[in-house]
């Protein structure tokens, strides 16, 4: 089961991968996941990632992050240093060469310092201060040749706090163990001493306050006024000769409990706070990740596919290879689907015979039969007048085929006319007729009204 840091980094890694994907695909994929999950359930990023990894091929490295590895190593080193330092510190505090007692005042001062440090670490973590961040970054760069992931940067503070509190806890624990071992294996003489003009009563009040948490149920670790009075020592006066040797050792339960209650316990509590804080900030970093809202949107929003990605089967028309010709002189002429070309066909009887359009097919055949009777040696040209803006259909192709069968030896010319009488249709419209004539074959040509640009007409 991955931790929340691993989840965050895995999510970030997936987010970076998804940048390359099309939004439509991502929406479909994540909506699919949301629909497959049971209804009413809040989206679970870990499960979402697990599903992606289960389907995908990158399962092996799913939760292997150099950043996490670095932090584990760094934390372990820090904690080990804390443990070692705990032993050394306590050994130093308890250093006793028989010449002078171990001053409980010094130990209390050290405990206070530790407490302050623990609180400072906690405040620093909660406030998000990162004065040590450049150090960590340079260390990471040196060890791993890479910068920390930006996804992790808001969590560096809480992570460092947790590491520091853990190290502090281990420090306290190893120091306490050192104390207990020293008590067992050495003859330690504790006392208290201060330059200040303090009475034993005042000092007793201080230690009673320190021992308040346990004085009720562990009186042996709560020094009495007699013990305080008996164990005061002065550097120049030498140790109090009246005090029994065992009295000097009676302080150890107090020292151990002070260490436990005022160093280890606060560290443990603050470690718990740091852990909760890290978890909270980890969740927040995930929900504020730029990919998170987008993912939620994809999961919640129905994937509407309007068919926008369906490719059209149509091909763009090819270029035509032929050119228009001039309008033949005194040809036979027929009007297709009601097209008229009075100005372009001088000397041709009007109205023109009709074909196509709303006429029946039989009427078309009759028209062709009539035209066949009009063929003479000098009139072997048939002009089929069409509307240039109307697309040429297969029905016209059929008519041209019938015409070439029934009017053998006659040259058929299509004459697409523009909306303005006498004008040459634009090249785009003429293009479709030229291509149509090429498709039909049988020598069919296309004529167009002359303009200055159309001087390249073929006779």
């Amino acid at each position, binding site marked *: 089961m991955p931790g929340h840091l691993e989840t965050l980094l895995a999510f970030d890694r997936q987010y970076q991968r998804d940048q390359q994907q099309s*939004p439509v695909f991502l929406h479909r994929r994540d*909506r*699919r996941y949301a*629909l497959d999950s049971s209804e009413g359930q809040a989206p679970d990023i870990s499960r979402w990632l697990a599903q992606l990894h289960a389907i995908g091929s990158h399962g092996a490295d799913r939760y292997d992050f150099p950043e996490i590895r670095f932090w584990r190593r760094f934390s372990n080193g820090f904690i080990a240093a804390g443990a070692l330092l705990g032993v050394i510190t306590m050994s130093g505090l308890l250093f006793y060469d028989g010449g002078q007692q171990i001053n409980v005042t010094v130990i209390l001062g050290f405990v206070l310092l530790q407490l302050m440090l623990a609180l400072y670490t906690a405040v620093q973590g909660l406030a998000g201060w990162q004065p040590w961040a450049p150090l960590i970054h*340079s260390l990471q760069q040196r060890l791993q040749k890479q910068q920390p992931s930006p996804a992790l940067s808001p969590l560096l503070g809480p992570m460092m706090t947790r590491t520091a509190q853990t190290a502090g806890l281990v420090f306290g624990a190893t120091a306490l163990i050192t104390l207990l071992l020293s008590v067992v294996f050495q003859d330690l003489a504790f006392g208290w001493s201060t330059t200040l003009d303090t009475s034993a009563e005042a000092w007793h009040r201080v230690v009673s306050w320190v021992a308040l948490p346990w004085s009720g149920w562990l009186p042996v670790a709560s020094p009495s006024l007699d013990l305080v009075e008996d164990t005061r020592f002065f550097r120049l006066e030498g140790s109090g000769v009246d005090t029994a040797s065992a009295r000097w050792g009676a302080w150890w339960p107090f020292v151990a409990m002070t260490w436990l209650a005022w160093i280890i316990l606060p560290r443990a509590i603050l470690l718990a706070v740091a852990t909760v804080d890290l978890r909270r900030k980890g969740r927040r970093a995930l929900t*504020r990740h730029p990919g998170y809202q987008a993912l939620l*949107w994809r999961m919640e*929003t*129905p*994937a*509407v*596919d*309007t*068919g*926008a*990605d*369906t*490719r*059209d*089967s*149509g*091909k*763009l*028309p090819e270029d035509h290879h032929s050119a228009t010709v001039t309008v033949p002189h005194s040809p036979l002429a027929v009007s297709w*689907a*009601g097209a008229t070309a009075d100005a372009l066909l001088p000397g041709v009887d009007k109205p023109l015979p009709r074909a*196509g*359009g*709303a006429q*029946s*097919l039989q009427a078309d055949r009759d028209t062709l039969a009539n035209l066949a009777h009009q063929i003479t040696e000098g009139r072997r040209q048939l002009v089929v007048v069409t509307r240039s*803006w109307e*697309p*040429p*259909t*297969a*029905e016209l192709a*059929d008519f041209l085929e019938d015409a070439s069968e029934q009017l053998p030896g006659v040259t058929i010319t299509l004459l697409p006319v523009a909306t303005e009488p006498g004008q040459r249709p634009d090249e785009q419209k003429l293009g*479709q007729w030229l*291509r*149509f004539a090429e*498709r039909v074959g049988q020598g069919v040509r296309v004529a167009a009204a002359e303009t200055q640009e159309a001087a390249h007409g073929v006779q």
Partner: protein
Amino acid sequence: MVSSEEAPVFAVVGHPNRGKSSVVATLSQNDSIAIALEPGTTRESQTYPLRVDGRTLYTLVDTPGFQRPRRVLEWLEAHSLSASDRPDTVAAFVHQHRDNPRFRDECELLAPIIEGAGIIYVVDGSVPYTAEQEAEMTILRWTGQPSLALINRIGPDDHTASWQSALGQFFQIVRNFDAVRAPFEQHLGLLKAFGQLRPDWEQPLEDAVGFLTRQREDRQWRSAHLIAAALAEMMTHQESRTLPKTLDTAGSDSRQALEARLRERWYQYQREREETLRRDVETLYQHHQIARQEAALSWHHDHDLFSEETRQVWAVSKAYLATAGFGAGAVGGVGIDALTLGHSLGAGALIGGLLGAAGSYFYGDRLAIRALSLGSLKGAGDLQTATFGPVQDLQFGYIVLGRAVDHWWHISQRNHAGREPLELPPSESHWLENLHSETRKAIQQALTRLRKNRKLSHGEQQELEVALHSALEGYSHWRLESIA
């Protein structure tokens, strides 16, 4: 026949080149459908289903046009005894001629209809009605399927009235629909009309309308998100370069050359980032073909992000900048011109014109950019970093915003049947003054933060997106009012 559980299918049929594909392109939001192809080259029907979470709500079938309607009708009339057998006769025609290449187009277009598809018959309302299309209308009537006629005006002329009376004799419903220019609400109205053809089609079409409406709202939110992100990146962008420490004399040639290089790179970045935003918004609205057309458009200098004209069009007045957060909306554009005594937009344009200044006038001197700054590079004794940017001028943010919102509006209003190049003609910037004061305030605050090179927090980012969403809404209203 289509059972009630199956999603309705609509065959879009008609004479060749009458705008069938443009209707399908607009309704399916597909700008890759080839429109105005050579008749006879579209030989196969193409289906465009509307799917929501994998469930098909309806399917549009783009069909080839009628090629030999009179021959088909002749065959049908020769094989029918009475009106009651007409649908079966049409089906028989399709079955008999399925492999006949002469009737391939007719079989393709009639096949979905005899399988139960509704008929959407498309005609061009810009050409006069002629009786020649009656053969194909008669064939469609013989199929006995629910039918709707669409008058899609392709050209400038209007012969809608004559079409309407003729089509009314053949089809249950006759609607006008301009596939290129119809606004989104009309798309939805048309889909609802499809649902009227049969009682059991009403619900899926209603559902489809609901999903499409939500999709459009989502797209507006996502556009606001995209614009907010681009705005933040463009305003805080900095060009930097590492170089030896020897280059430190202010005013030296090498220093000026470096500044010019970084400045050019900074401008280049801004142009590219804006281009990316455009593509993102276009992709969001399923417009994939515009980029290609835009390249051919030659994005001429006058409309460039840093041109003088752009500045005149999209910059806001100093009064607006000073008062954006405090209810300046009450003062109209004219009022602002008068109040600022020649410092506002109109006067700025005049001054700019008189000086004949190009982009360098405003952007060299007046668009404050944090110019070249040299700083030492940590950990490298003889190296330093030279940085150029970020922009220090709020106007830059307003120019980027104005252009982005205008582009969004054109894209969101553009139908997928449109094949014209996207033109973004200059507009005017007074649209901002129509926005709600809260919206203006939020935009101003975000831009101010970005100007100070401060990263927007999660909450601030969201506030900006909400404000931009309102701004998009406001811009649409402003546009509609301007047109009206």
